[in-house]
């Protein structure tokens, strides 16, 4: 299983919206690295949902329910379908992740603006532990 992180502006589409919708098409990504990551997602992979803007926090987990397909709004780009998995016990902020030395290599720390990022299992577990601490 692979782990990912997808970023969203909560005012546009939040984790609560995903919880309400159960599933959604994750489209609108217009960055080449992010597109490559979307294409690398496999059914059953888990993805952190990260709220941008003022929140800047990992807030929940989604599951990849459908592997990549052309973005309905622009066939040049890719989209996936994700399903709601769970809300984290408490949000894990970017600042708290940055303050952890062992997370220095996490994409979120090195290239925060990338909208779809890969996450290692160690990073995934560490963020989960942070959310439960």
């Amino acid at each position, binding site marked *: 299983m692979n782990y990912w992180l997808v970023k969203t*502006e909560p005012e546009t589409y939040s984790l609560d919206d995903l919880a309400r919708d159960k599933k959604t098409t994750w489209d609108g990504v217009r*960055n080449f690295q992010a597109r490559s990551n979307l294409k690398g997602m496999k059914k059953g992979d888990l993805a952190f949902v990260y709220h*941008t803007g003022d929140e*800047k926090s990992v807030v929940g987990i989604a599951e990849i329910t459908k592997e990549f397909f052309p973005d309905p709004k622009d066939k040049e780009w890719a989209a996936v379908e994700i399903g709601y998995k769970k809300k984290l016990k408490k949000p894990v902020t970017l600042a708290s992740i*940055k303050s952890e030395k062992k997370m220095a290599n996490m994409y979120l*720390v090195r290239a925060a*603006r*990338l909208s779809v990022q890969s996450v290692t299992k160690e990073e995934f577990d560490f963020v989960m532990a942070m959310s439960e601490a």
Partner: protein
Amino acid sequence: MRHLRLQIPNYKLEIAHCVLLGVKFVICNLKFVILVFLSFNLSAQISQPARYEHAHKNNDHEFIIISMGEQGLALMRDIEKYENGKKDWEVIFLDSALQEIWSTKIAVQQRMNILGHEYRDGNVYLVFQEPESAGRSVGIFELNLRDQLFKEHLFKPELSIHFTQFSVLKTKAIFGGYINKEPALLQYDLNEEKARIIPGVFQPNVDLVDVRVNSNETFNMLLVEGRSNKSKKLIARTFDANGVMLVEDAIAIEEGKTVLEAISSSLIRDELIIIGTWTYGSTKQAAGIFSVVVDPFHEQKVNYYDFALLNHFLDYFKPKRAAKIKAKADWRRSVGKPPEFRAYLSGIKIEETKDGFSFLGEVYEASYYNSRNSYPYGSNPYYSNPYGFYPYGFSPMPYRYYNNPYYPTPYGSPAQVAEIRMISSSLLFFDTQGKLVSDQSLKFPEIKLSSKEQISDFITHNGFTTMVSKDEKEIQVKVNEKDGTTVKEEKVKPELKNPNETIRSESDDNTGIRAWFGQYFYVYGYQAVRDNVKKTSHDVFYINKVKVD
């Protein structure tokens, strides 16, 4: 009549009462004004707590000064001593009290010229390179302040690179530049002593405008794509320390507009901002400032501000002229015409604060002469002179983009700068979304240079901003509130520490002032100093520590 008569004394009483009230009001307000004035003056005192002097003869080379922040300053100069095909350079380290803590000599291949320098994590890196005719080998001296040791690295790039940028990230030296007019990145591993070209960077019709190391062990490369096309893009790439590209973002530049210069922030804040100058047509003069926060979650709309939109940018003109320019610009803006007023503006630096970003730029006038026989680029790094005194140096920042082979004639024929007249410093504040909040300016006295170099700087302290510059004899100080309201202006002479001495003269060529760390600047130059007791004179290179309280 009676009525009038009765009224007259009442008037007198009222007038007397009003006068009394007025006096009370004035006294109260005066007290307030005096309090504010006193409290401000107490909080904007300029002092010079330390001075360093080094004997300097007429034929000595001048020092290059490298700020190490709170660790102090490193000074370096060619001392013209030759042995075994090498020549010696002197390197002196001063602590933040300007006390000498280490002095050493490095022997550099005789044909190599200083190309750049960097301070990072306790090490000073000095870069030298042979000229093209001598093979273009590169030498990097890595001087470790703590152990007081240095190491020399020597390598020859496989391909001939015209270097324009240099920085260091962890154990990797990063060079930006051009190979056959296409941007290139070269990485030299200081541990493994291996150089490699970072793949995937070559691209025709692209200008490299910035390479900057970030606070999170990554670095940014900033490119402008589509030099001569209608569809132009600003491309921000972020790489990890191994040169692996982590993310690339492309931002469309509005049709008809051209980006002249750009600098990126260094991710001290989470957002990456790009600020620079823009124009239209093929002119070398900027029409304004642009800013954009690289954020794929938003429209990534570039904010374009023409100079007349800024509150203080035009302060170097007489008020009537400034008002006329503003009025005309307002009208042209309202009818959708591009701004008519343009100026040469070079970006100096971006600072990141809790409220957003600040950008310092300097306005200048340049007179050019064209030469078909000159170096085929607009500005040869070996002859463009950021320090004003070395004919071959380039500073890794902030003039790195002055060594852009396409600058200052990105589209035109090669041109050489004949004279630079420095006019004004412009300081802009942006919020976290990259929107302009306020601006300030500092008009320079008459300063003429043979090449563009930074002559002003600023620090923020206790809610105030202190902008400074240095002319031949004096430090020009202007203290502003954040909205640009000036609360204090003064001129301060660099102080001598020996009461028996007086300054006879000071060179106007090689002097300057820079923000150092916290509330400190350092001012430097060359003076002839007279000892009034011994009745002798001596020439010195000096650095004074300048504190703003």
